[in-house]
């Protein structure tokens, strides 16, 4: 579904040349939920903006369903970390969710249906008439997720969406993403700096190196499909996986060239 090939992004300006992303290659299969995790400042956001067509890569390419991405493609929806700034304060919640649909040229009845359905699935069916700033942070991010759902994207890109909410809200939102992913069989690329979150959410975790960024390791998360905050997080397999990712991230921060070869026991 989504192919990232040899992606490289160099920022140039005022005499400084910063290589944010060196050479990234990975792919996301249709219906897969992949988490990208890496040390802070490793160019995760740059990478996601390139994937979403918001930034032009210096080299390499991004393919969505075989078509090259240059400019935001209609089949992708973006959920930003800064929900408060991503939602428009001058529009009510319903209008915020509806706006992208108007650009898609959908009829009024169809738009209304999609908005109601999306707000219903994030548990905000009766908030359509409110302004975003009348809602709590977690609710605002759910509105942003609803806006992405209503857009009916092939791929949903999420850029550290829960970094700015409190821990309890965060757990609820993680479960929401898992539920929506299973219900709607979406393809999701989820960027986070939180190792636990990456392992809890993902079917696969892509560990990135420190900047200039390359893929350090890809890890299949062989936890059961049905996950919950209480049991999954204390499962021995969860601990093994998070330890593995943690070691990789630590090694990435130290700048170790070769991946750490600590044995990862197969699940039997």
């Amino acid at each position, binding site marked *: 579904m989504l192919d990232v090939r040899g992606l490289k992004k160099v920022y140039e300006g005022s005499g400084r040349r910063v290589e944010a992303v060196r050479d990234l290659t990975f792919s996301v299969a249709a219906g897969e939920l992949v988490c990208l995790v890496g040390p802070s400042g490793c160019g995760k956001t740059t990478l996601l*903006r390139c994937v*979403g*067509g*918001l930034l032009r890569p210096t080299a390499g390419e991004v393919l969505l369903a075989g078509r090259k991405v240059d400019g*935001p493609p*209609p089949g*992708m*929806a*973006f959920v*930003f970390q*800064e929900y408060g*700034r*991503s939602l*428009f*304060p*001058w*529009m009510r919640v319903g209008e915020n969710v509806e*706006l*992208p649909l108007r*650009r*898609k040229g959908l009829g009024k009845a169809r738009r209304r249906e999609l908005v109601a359905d999306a707000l219903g699935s994030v548990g905000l069916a009766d908030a359509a008439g409110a*302004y975003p*700033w*009348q*809602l*709590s942070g977690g609710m605002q991010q759910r509105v942003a997720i609803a*806006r992405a759902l209503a*857009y009916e994207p092939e791929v949903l890109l999420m850029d550290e969406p829960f970094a700015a909410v409190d821990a309890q809200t965060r757990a609820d939102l993680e479960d929401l993403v898992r539920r929506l992913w299973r219900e709607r069989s979406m393809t999701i690329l989820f960027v986070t700096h939180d190792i636990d979150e990456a392992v809890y959410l993902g079917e696969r975790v892509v560990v990135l190196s420190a900047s200039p960024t390359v893929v350090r390791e890809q890890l299949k998360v062989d936890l059961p499909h049905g996950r919950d905050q209480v049991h999954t997080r204390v499962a021995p397999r969860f601990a093994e996986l998070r330890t593995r990712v943690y070691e990789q991230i630590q090694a990435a921060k130290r700048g170790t060239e070769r991946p750490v070869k600590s044995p990862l026991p197969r699940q039997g």
Partner: protein
Amino acid sequence: MRGANAALGAAGLAAFLALGEAVPRLGLVEEDYFPPTSRIADALGTEIADGSFWTALGDTLTGWALGLAIAIGAGIVIGVVLSVVPYLREATASTIEFLRPIPSVALIPLAVLLYGTELRSVLLLVVYASFWQVLIQVLYGVQDVDPVAEETARSYGLGPWARVRHVLWPTALPYVMTGVRLAAAVALILAITAELVIGAPGLGARIAVARTSQAVPEMYALIVVAGLLGLLINVGARSVERRALAWHQSVRGEVAV
């Protein structure tokens, strides 16, 4: 609290009017040049009963409204175009900084040369003075667009025009409203100045006539009318602002979440 403030305000105004009555009556100032409040009120009553007063008021309001409308329209369109088209802002910045501080009244000779005492003379001065108020605010407002909001709009495939309409314009609106409020006040000042100095028909010309014919109380009555007009315009502009910006932080206040 609100009631108490209103009462204090009314008391202050009453005291001011009483002072205006007492000072000339006590002979502290020349009564011929500073008529007491009651005589001004009388003159105001006579004015209101006079049909030609209303014609003059109509002329002033026409010059004000027409000039303001042209200035707002031009200020918004030019401001948005300057900000949206690359390099245009930089190319025009120094010219704008040169033209903007020229006092509109300095253009009175030009206005007379071009249009004599016609309405167009008034319009030239009004538009010149209020245009900059709007333009500068639009330029500031457009710069305030949140990059995250802009990226959100782009990621959902909103084209340039849709982004101007749904992101840039609502972001700039609070600034535009400030510009419009300032421009409305400046436009009235210039409309009356133009009438007073050039003699274009309106309240200003009527004030000049009252002065030359030694009708001092009438002159004051007309000045009071001009003041009330300014007050009404400001109150009106503020209420429009509050309605248009109900969503904005400055109007909505703190919200309990």
